[in-house]
């Protein structure tokens, strides 16, 4: 019974961590998607600042997100954010919106494993 109690405690703790992580990932991805949706157009002088803020926000959360997400996914988001900043610097409108769409898609991919969906079964 002692081993069962320890196992149960371990399992409950793990479920707690999983649920906490799911909420955390959902919050991060929602913030990213919301920021990407309302990001100013590349012609707007505020655009570059917004992309840099977004990159700083993501960089701050990478160590925690990496605990549950696969490396290629987090690396892809970092890469796309760098591309988005570069497009904003150069005023590349077409490139900016293409990268933004790609980024939204990748962030969505990060969020989906933490939301219960039949797709993942």
């Amino acid at each position, binding site marked *: 019974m002692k081993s069962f109690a320890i196992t*149960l405690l371990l399992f409950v703790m*793990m479920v707690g961590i999983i*649920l906490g992580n799911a909420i955390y990932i959902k919050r991060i991805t929602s913030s990213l998607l919301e920021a990407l949706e309302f990001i100013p157009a590349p012609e707007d002088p505020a655009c570059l600042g917004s992309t840099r803020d977004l990159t700083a926000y993501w960089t701050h959360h990478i160590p925690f997100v990496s605990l*549950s997400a*696969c490396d*290629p996914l987090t690396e892809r988001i970092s890469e796309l954010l760098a591309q988005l900043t570069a497009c904003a610097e150069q005023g590349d409108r077409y490139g900016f919106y293409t990268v933004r769409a790609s980024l939204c898609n990748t962030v969505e991919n990060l969020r989906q494993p*933490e*939301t219960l969906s039949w797709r993942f079964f």
Partner: protein
Amino acid sequence: MLTILFRTLLIYLILFVILRLMGKRQIGELEITDLMTTLLLSEIASLPITNRELPVSHAVIPMITLLFLEVSSSVVLIHFPKLRGLVSARPTVILHGGKLRVGALRSLRISMDELISEIRQQGYTSLSQIDCAILEKNGKLTVLPKAEYSTPNAADMGLTLPKTALMHIVFSNGTVSKEGLSLIGKSEDWLMRELSRRQLSLDSLFCVTADESGEIYTIPKEKSEP
């Protein structure tokens, strides 16, 4: 992580159904749940070791989930023995009173060749020598021979044999084993007395075993050992 948790639960359930349907022939000496856990753990544990891109959590979550399922299923089975029939197979009588139960053999998918081979391995040459054969839930065949083919034992011959006592390690690697001494109902003082009676010291010994009757067996250290 949430998806991994539910995927592990689902895979465990599917694997359980598959192994249960396979029957006891596939199980060997393990219970179904033990086998499932062994199969899954060996694969899961190696994932983050071989694949650097996967976070360690992708292996830790399934491992803890499997541990929980394994331990909790055994606890549930202790408290609800009626459920045991769902999890483990029941022993099946294949041969009774010297008569072969063909239906049982067919349902277990055991051929006559396999049955005869099993019986041969247990030291019998013909089915006619067997009174009863039972396929146990761990997949092993228990064979009970007819009385005339049974090996006589001491009781059959009216012999009284001395009681065999189990030896326990009471001293090993320079340490006296209190657990070993308590198992034979003796104390450390008793051990010291016995050794001094034999003019031996613990420093000169590698290992000492003893049984309940006080019988001692000593293994001296090799000369090169410090």
